[in-house]
């Protein structure tokens, strides 16, 4: 009973925060609503008994992704104003209809799901099984560590490679050649293509 009430409170707060993110005019407000949404997701993860992922959610999403987004907001201050020229709700109507259509489709799919072969329907899953055993849920972190290093080793290594590529790519994209910022865009195009093969970690401006 208490679990249901908690779930309803956290869900409504999370959905309100998500609505705030997509509707806020001020981008910093939108980022703060996003923080609230991520925190509500972390609470839902605790309700699902994966506290490790709740902690990772707070650390990675709130602690890194939102900070990056705020950097992006601060560094791309619009010179001529953005959302204030969007013209109210009329151009947003098709988007709203499409989102409502997707919502209706998903709700109908969840509600009328029937199960596949020997599996029962989702609506029958009224209570969670004690399935993995209580000791798995209490010892999630060592199990995750062991599984990552044994069963999911390839995915783990590929993810490390992906993160390296992302870091190098982000630096290569946003690298700024300071003394040659002034010239017209065609010259800047030239400079960017020359920069690409060079390692971006030298740090000495030209």
């Amino acid at each position, binding site marked *: 009973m208490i679990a249901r009430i908690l779930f309803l409170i956290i869900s409504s707060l999370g959905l309100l925060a*998500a609505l705030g993110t*997509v509707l806020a005019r001020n981008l910093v407000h939108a980022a703060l609503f996003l923080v609230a*949404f991520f925190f509500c997701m972390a609470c839902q993860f605790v309700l699902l008994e994966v506290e490790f992922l709740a902690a990772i959610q707070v650390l*990675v999403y709130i602690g890194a*992704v939102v900070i990056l987004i705020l950097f992006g907001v601060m560094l791309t201050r619009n010179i001529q104003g953005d959302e204030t020229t969007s013209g109210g709700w009329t151009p947003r109507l098709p988007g709203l209809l499409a989102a409502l259509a997707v919502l209706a489709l998903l709700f109908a799919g969840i509600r009328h799901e029937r199960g596949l072969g020997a599996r029962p329907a989702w609506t029958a899953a009224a209570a969670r099984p004690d399935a993995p055993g209580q000791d798995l849920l209490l010892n999630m972190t060592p199990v995750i560590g062991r599984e990552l290093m044994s069963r999911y080793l390839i995915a783990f290594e590929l993810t490390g490679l992906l993160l390296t590529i*992302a870091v190098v*790519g982000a630096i290569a994209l946003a690298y*700024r050649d300071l003394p040659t910022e002034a010239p017209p865009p065609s010259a800047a195009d030239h400079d960017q293509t020359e920069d690409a093969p060079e390692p971006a970690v030298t740090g000495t401006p030209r």
Partner: protein
Amino acid sequence: MTQDIPLTWFLYFAAAAFAIGLFGVMIRRNAVAVLMAIEIMLNAANMNLLAFWRYNPAPAGEGPITGVIFALFVITVAAAEVAVGIGLVLLCYRRLQAADVDRYDRLSG
């Protein structure tokens, strides 16, 4: 627990969050705001993964925490994607002097 949360409640919540994120992607004109809405959608998918993992018995050949590992990798890839996305937005802002997605049309015919 006397009365547990049904699985479908988690799925409804994830579906609603996904629809809100989709609405944000289509509505917003600022590129960074679009990235924020994409993150909402990714979190909704993660929610689905974990709900299905918790409410189903573990499959025979797989490990005991398949859903958790999947969600962990989704979080990692989403963080990498935001990093590269912000780099792209900064580059486009520098070229076109705006973070408005309607202005990013240099490749269109």
